[in-house]
């Protein structure tokens, strides 16, 4: 009950902060054809599936994609044709995920899915996407299925690269010898990511320990005590922001800040989270981020802010998933604008998406690409931040990770000419 209260209060404070977060820039949005004329042609149906229910809200990607497509539609659409963006929420329910996936792909006949963010939908619908020849340009993925299927490509890194990125920094800069990877025991999520964390630690001659908890019965106190019992020197918070902050609060109550080094992948990097964490953690919490800093002066980041300000809805999330959804929608739109508007169908869109190679954005550290492959992970380099002076400061700019998991990805990049 105490944990639940913590999670609820953290969520409420974060939600309130989203609504009051000030805009970072006031530039006019730039979208698609940028003609200033509303598109009036035959709509192009595009789908999106998010997971918005306890224990996490993964709707940031579809929120931002919806805002970007609204902006595109107000600026000429896809050569005159507006995008009809249909978003479904799978509520973290595998059956519902299968149902809404079928609805979008078979009944609605969407040409592609963009901005997807769900822990269960990708696992359930990967085969459907492949069988039906439809591509999903996801933005908020957290399970292996997102990165190990031919018809899914995600703009966000997911827990594996971001977590290893955080550990790499911890090993190199903080002197980590034994890290505990604390995650949820969700199929192909916590176990998958933490297994690769442990392999990474072994490759460096260090030790890694997985501590996985039941997502339906979160007990943060016992997880904290388990980490103490394991004798680790570093805790990797492989969790959504709510439970991660809850665990920080447990450590704070028990005076545990200095018992461990604290590192985290992206989820805890959210607007407003700095107000929740408090001074206790100043200089002690390190976070690897998958996309650019929220206040980055890059053109795409500023455009993301402008699009969300003008076309986003009240209460839309403005987190990393949102940045990811925005840039996914932009890459998708750019690919479609190269097609003959009259002949756009699923086959031509799938071909166009697979033809994306070397797209650039200041939101990403490396080039974005899709290509013909049985797996995709175009984004695997990130930045490291530290919580300091009531905000996050960059302590290491774009850096890649070294893990055998990326061997097939690096081979693809070489074949596509992304790297030499």
């Amino acid at each position, binding site marked *: 009950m105490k944990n639940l209260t913590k999670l609820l209060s953290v969520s409420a404070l974060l939600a309130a902060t989203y609504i009051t977060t000030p805009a970072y820039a006031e530039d006019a949005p730039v979208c698609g054809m940028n003609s200033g004329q509303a598109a009036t042609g035959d709509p192009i149906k595009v789908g999106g599936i998010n997971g918005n229910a306890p224990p996490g809200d993964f709707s940031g990607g579809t929120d931002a994609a919806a805002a970007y497509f609204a902006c595109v539609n107000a600026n000429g659409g896809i050569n005159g044709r507006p995008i009809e963006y249909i978003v479904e929420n799978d509520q973290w*329910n595998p*059956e519902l995920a299968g149902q*809404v996936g079928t609805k979008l792909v078979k009944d609605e006949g969407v040409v592609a899915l963009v901005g997807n963010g769900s822990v269960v939908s990708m696992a359930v619908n*990967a085969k459907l996407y492949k069988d039906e020849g439809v591509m999903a340009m996801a933005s908020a993925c957290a399970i*292996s299925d997102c990165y*190990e299927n031919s018809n899914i490509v995600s703009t966000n890194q997911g827990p594996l690269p971001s977590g290893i990125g955080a550990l790499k920094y911890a090993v190199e800069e903080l002197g980590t010898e034994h890290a505990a990877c604390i995650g949820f025991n969700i199929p192909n999520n916590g*176990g998958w990511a933490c297994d690769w964390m442990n392999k990474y630690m072994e490759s460096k001659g260090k030790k890694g320990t997985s501590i996985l908890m*039941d997502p*339906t019965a979160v007990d943060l106190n016992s997880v904290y005590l388990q980490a103490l019992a394991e004798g680790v020197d570093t805790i990797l918070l492989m969790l959504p922001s709510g439970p991660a902050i809850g665990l920080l609060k447990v450590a704070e109550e028990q005076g545990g800040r200095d018992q461990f080094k604290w590192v985290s992948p992206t989820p805890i990097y959210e607007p407003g989270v700095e107000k929740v964490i408090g001074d206790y953690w100043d200089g002690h919490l390190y976070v690897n981020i998958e996309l650019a800093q929220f206040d980055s002066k890059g053109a795409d980041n500023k455009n993301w802010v402008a699009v969300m300000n003008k076309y986003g809805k009240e209460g839309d999330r403005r987190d990393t998933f949102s940045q990811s959804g925005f840039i996914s929608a932009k890459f998708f739109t750019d690919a479609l604008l190269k097609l003959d508007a009259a002949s756009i169908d699923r086959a031509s869109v799938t071909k166009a998406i697979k033809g994306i190679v070397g797209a650039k954005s200041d939101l990403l550290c490396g080039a974005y690409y899709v290509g013909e492959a049985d797996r995709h992970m175009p984004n695997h380099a990130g930045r490291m931040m530290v919580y300091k002076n009531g905000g996050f400061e960059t302590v290491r700019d774009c850096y890649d990770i070294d893990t055998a998991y990326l061997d097939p990805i690096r081979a693809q990049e070489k074949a596509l000419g992304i790297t030499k």
Partner: protein
Amino acid sequence: MPLRFDIKNTFTLVLVLAVIVLFPLLLSSLWVKVVTSALIFSLAALGVSVVFAQLGLINLSQIALVGVGGWVLLRLNYATELPFTVMLVLGGIVTASIGALLALPALRMRGLYLALVTLMAAGAFQILFNAFQFPNGGEGFWGVAQQSAGVVRRPAFAQSDANYLRYVISAVAICITVVGLHRYAAPGRAWAMTRQSEANAMAAGVNVTFYKLWAFALSGCVAGIAGGLLAGALQQLDARSFLAGDSILLFALAIVGGVYHWLGAIIAGLLFKLLPALLNDFGLSADIAMVIFGAALLHAIMTAPQGIAGQLIGAISSIGKKGSATDD
């Protein structure tokens, strides 16, 4: 009572065949999936009805048993080359055994205490499912690997979702028939006598222990088959589909649907899966269904102990009687 092919039974058979052939043609892809899911959970509700209607016992572990059936089918799918239907039956048999095992406390308990024990068992299964996950093609006994789930074989003629729905309708019809036949045979008579008075049943020579175990095994068997069908429908299973709390909801909906007629189980399954999907499709929160379920349960307890099925059948028979009176 021997099974006779009289006009009523023949009509029912023709109706079932017509539903199998025509029903999937009327539905879009979304609703094919939703109805498939609803019918699968109708089987689980049928299992609840067997134990509650026949023996007056409350079993709150039915959703966990669905998970057990699904686990067995997935394990067999990745470990053997057995046809889907064989795996389905084996899943039903294994789950029947576990269902019978759960009946052991039932031999000494009734009412609230039995309900609590079975609920705790469901909680234990929930923890096991979360801790060990469902097989996805990995090595070892648990068959779990950090990889995308493999393919779950379906019957050759049921590769498409529409044909799989036909397969599920057939399976549901067969299970309803088997459960219905039990009611007219020796187990049904033994259950009826036991429900009235265990002491009298024993005095009459009924092996109460054996028939209680049989009821729980039968209930577990249909739940296991439901789990196998669910695994075939989704091509994988997730621990979040088998929460202990859902067994309470399913029990409540079995009461709302009506436990004394097979139609009640179908209604319970439709309420359990179809109503939330309808609300979701209308853009409303599926949680509204819980409010509706609560009101429906109150209505059933206060005014309709036979459930919606009882009310429907009552209405149909009263129309029939009026028709006969008019003819006279």
